[in-house]
C-alpha cells in the first residue's frame, strides 16, 4: 500500500473524514462547477457533505437535486458538454436506473466524474457492498477504478478528473468504493492544499468539442448505420490511449504529492517472491493482506494484488505480475450467473488476460462478501490455501468456490 508523505506545502491539514466526506473534500479541491445529486445509500453522504461545503461558502458550484438518477446523470452529462467540470454519484439500483444516461455520456466522449458507493442490487433490499453496480460499466467505454482507503478516494477524484479530461482520453470516470467499509468509516485523512491541487489538475478544457454560442456544434445527431461503426472505433482508440495516459498522470501526482503510488493500476502486497496470490477489488484488501502475512509466518509464499483499475484493464501489467505466479485466486464480490465458468466478472478478465501466456498460473475463483457480508481473515486464508492446492495441480470439481455461504 502507498504511504502518505508529509510535505508542508502540499498537504493543508489532517481531518477526520469518512470515505464519502473525503470524496466531497476532493470535489471542493477540484473546484467542480456543477453537481447533480439524488440520494441513495451509501452514496447519500457524499451529497450531504457537498451541500454543507457549498452552504459554508467553501465551494462555488451549481448544486442541483434531481428528480431521479436518470435526470441526475443527464444533468452532469450536459454540464460536461458545455465545458463545466461536473460531478455526480449513486449506488446500487439507483445507479442502474440512470444507466441510459451513463451509456451516452461515454459515447459522447464527455468526462464528468461519478462516485459509486457500491451496493447490492435489489432484490432483496440490501445496503451492503456488492460490485455488480459499478462493474455494469465495464463494456461501456468508461474509466473505472476502485479506491480502497478514504485517502485513496480523495486522491482519485483528482487523479480521475485529470485522466478523464486529458485530450487524449475524454472519457467519463467512475470511482467505485465499497459501501460501508469505505464510505462510512472515519479515518484521519491528509487533505491537500488548494495550491498543490491547482498545480496537479489543470482547468477542464473540452476544446473544439465544447458546446458554446461561440462554438456552435450539434452533439449526438441521429446517424444510423452510416457513422456508428466509425464512432465506436474512435471510442476504442480513446480507451486504448487511456492505458498510456494513466501512468503519466500518476507520475505527475507522485512528483507533487510524494511517492504515493508505485504502480498506478494495482498494488502489489508481498508479491515479489510470491508463488500464489489473491486478486481483489476494494476493501477486501484489508483482511486479505493480514491473511497473506499470517501465511508468510508459516513459510508460505503468498501475496495479494489489490486491483485498482478495472477499465481500462491493465492487461500487460497484470500479465507481468500474475504470469510469474503458480496460482491466482480471484475474489469476486459480484456475480455473473451463467458466465463461462459460472464465476464472477473479474475472473473472466483475469483468465483472458493470462491466456496468451505459454506458462499460465492455475486460476481459481471465489465468490464472497455479497450483499455486504464480511470476508474475514480466516476466509482469506482459506482462499489462499485453496489457491495453493490448485497451483499444486489438485483437481477441483468446479472452478468457483463460494466463501462464507451457509450451506
Amino acid at each position: 500500500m502507498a504511504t502518505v508523505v508529509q510535505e508542508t506545502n502540499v498537504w493543508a491539514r489532517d481531518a477526520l473524514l469518512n470515505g464519502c466526506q473525503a470524496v466531497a473534500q476532493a470535489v471542493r479541491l477540484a473546484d467542480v462547477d456543477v453537481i447533480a445529486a439524488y440520494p441513495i445509500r451509501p452514496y447519500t453522504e457524499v451529497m450531504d457533505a457537498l451541500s454543507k461545503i457549498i452552504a459554508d461558502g467553501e465551494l462555488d458550484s451549481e448544486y442541483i437535486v434531481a428528480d431521479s438518477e436518470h435526470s441526475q446523470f443527464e444533468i452532469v452529462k450536459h454540464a460536461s458538454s458545455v465545458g463545466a467540470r461536473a460531478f455526480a454519484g449513486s449506488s446500487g439500483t439507483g445507479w442502474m436506473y440512470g444507466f441510459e444516461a451513463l451509456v451516452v455520456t461515454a459515447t459522447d466522449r464527455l468526462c464528468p466524474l461519478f462516485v459509486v458507493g457500491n451496493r447490492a442490487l435489489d432484490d432483496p433490499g440490501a445496503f451492503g457492498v456488492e460490485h455488480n453496480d459499478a462493474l455494469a460499466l465495464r463494456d461501456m467505454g468508461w474509466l473505472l477504478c476502485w479506491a480502497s482507503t478514504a485517502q485513496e478516494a480523495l486522491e482519485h477524484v483528482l487523479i480521475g478528473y485529470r485522466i478523464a479530461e486529458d485530450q487524449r482520453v475524454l472519457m467519463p470516470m467512475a470511482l467505485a468504493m465499497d459501501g460501508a467499509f469505505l464510505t462510512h468509516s472515519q479515518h484521519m485523512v491528509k487533505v491537500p492544499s488548494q495550491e498543490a491541487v491547482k498545480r496537479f489538475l489543470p482547468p477542464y478544457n473540452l476544446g473544439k468539442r465544447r458546446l458554446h454560442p461561440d462554438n456552435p456544434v450539434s452533439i449526438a445527431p441521429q446517424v444510423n448505420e452510416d457513422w456508428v461503426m466509425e464512432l465506436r472505433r474512435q471510442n476504442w482508440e480513446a480507451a486504448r490511449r487511456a492505458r498510456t495516459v494513466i501512468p503519466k498522470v500518476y507520475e505527475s501526482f507522485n512528483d507533487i504529492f510524494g511517492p504515493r503510488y508505485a504502480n498506478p493500476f494495482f498494488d502489489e502486497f508481498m508479491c515479489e517472491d510470491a508463488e500464489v496470490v489473491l486478486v481483489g477489488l476494494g476493501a477486501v484488501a484489508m483482511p486479505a493482506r493480514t491473511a497473506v502475512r499470517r501465511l508468510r509466518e508459516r513459510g508460505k509464499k503468498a501475496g495479494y494484488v489489490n486491483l485498482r483499475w478495472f477499465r481500462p484493464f491493465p492487461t500487460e501489467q497484470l500479465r507481468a505480475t500474475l504470469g510469474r505466479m503458480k496460482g491466482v485466486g480471484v475474489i469476486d464480490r459480484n456475480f455473473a450467473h451463467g458466465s463461462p465458468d459460472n464465476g464472477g466478472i473479474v475472473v473472466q478478465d483475469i483468465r483472458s488476460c493470462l491466456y496468451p501466456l505459454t506458462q499460465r498460473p492455475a486460476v481459481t475463483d471465489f465468490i464472497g462478501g455479497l450483499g455486504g457480508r464480511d470476508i474475514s481473515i480466516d476466509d482469506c486464508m482459506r482462499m489462499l490455501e485453496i489457491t495453493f492446492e490448485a497451483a499444486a495441480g489438485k483437481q477441483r470439481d468446479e472452478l468457483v468456490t463460494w466463501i462464507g455461504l451457509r450451506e
Partner: protein
Amino acid sequence: MIKRVEVNYRGIFQKNLGKFIGGDIVQIASRMGKVAFSNGRYSDSPERNGIPCKYFAFVSPDLSEEELEAECGAKLDIDEADVSVVVDDTMVKGVEPWGWHGVRAINEKVREKGCLLVVSRHGHDQLLKFVPKKPFSYRLALVEGDASFAGLWVNKDDLTRERVLGAIAAVDPGIISIEAVEAYLLERTKERHRAEAARAAYDATLRSTRIIKAGEGADWAHEIPRLPTWKEFEDLGVAVPAVPRGFKMGPRGQARNDAFKRGTTKSHRPVVRFDLCIKCTLCWYDCPDECFDPTDDGLYDVNYEVCVGCHKCAEVCPVPECIVMVDELKFDNNDSPWEHHKRDPQGYITWAEDKKGTERIHYPHVTGTGMEIRQGKFVPPKQEKGGAAAEAKA
C-alpha cells in the same frame, strides 16, 4: 496491540452522539501518536427511532494504519470489546437491532478484564439484575446521567459526549488519556467547562468502577436464531412466509412477527391503570406497533415484548394518570399487566402507582400548530416559543 471500543446507542435519538464519540476517540488517539479509525455497524442503517445500534473506534499504539485496517476495517461487527459503552442504560436488558439477530446481551462483546461503561442513574446492583453472567471477570463502570436523546440531525449538547470520553480514559487509559481528552476538548472548543466535565467524569468513573466476577449477573433466556441455508431458499426465493393471520381476544391474542419483536427499542413503557380506563379505544387505535390486545372486558392489554416505548398511547389517552410512561429499568419481565389486574385489582393499582412514582416524563412538542394536547387537555405553549400561531390561539 489493538483496542476496540463500541458505543451502544439508540438509533436516531443518539446517532450523532455515537458518531461523535467514535470520531473524538480517533482524533484524540491520533494526537497521542496512535493510529485509529472509527465506523458504525452498517447493518444498523437505516436506523429507526430507538433501535439499539453500535458505533466502533479502533486504536493501536504500534500497528501501522494499514495493519490496523487489515485487522478491523472490513468487518461488520467486532468479536470483542475492551470497552462497551452504553449511552442509554435501558439497553442493559438486551439489544435486538434487527430481525433474525435475536436479543443479544449488552455485555456480549466485553472481553475478560474489559469494561462495560454505562451512563445511568441506577447503581451497579440494579443494572446487574439485567446484565447477564459471563464466564470470566470484567468491570462495570458508571457515568452518572440520563440518556441523552436528540434527533436525526442534531446532538443534545449536555456534555454527555465529553463525560463519556473522560470515563473511557478512566477505564482504559490505553485507548486515550485524560490529559489528551482535556487538551483536545480545550483546543477544539476553546471552552474550559467541557474539559472540566471530562475530568469530573474521569474522577467519578475511577470511583464507580467495580469488578464483576465470573458468574455474577443475570441468567440469560434469549437464544441466537439459526439463519437459513441457501437450500432453504429454493422453494420461495426472495419471498418469505408472512406472519400467520390470526386474532383472538385477550393477552398475546394477535399474530405477530416472532423473528423481530422490537421490545428492546424502548427506554420507557406505558403503565396502564385499567380501573381508570374509559374504554375509548384510542391507545389501541393509535399505537403504531399494534401492541394493544383487546380483552373480553373491553380493556386493552399491553404486549411489552413488542412495545417500542413511543409514548403515543400516553399522549392520546384522555384520562389523566391512566397511561403513564415509566423507566424501563423498573421492570423485570414482560408479563401481561391485564392478567395482573384481573388476578388482583387492588394489588395491581398499588403496584402500578409504585412504578409510576411521582415524576412524569414530558417532552416538548416539536411540530404542529403551537398547541399540544396532553391527556385530553390543550396545554398552552410557552410564550417565548409560541410564535404567531400561539398568539392567535391566545
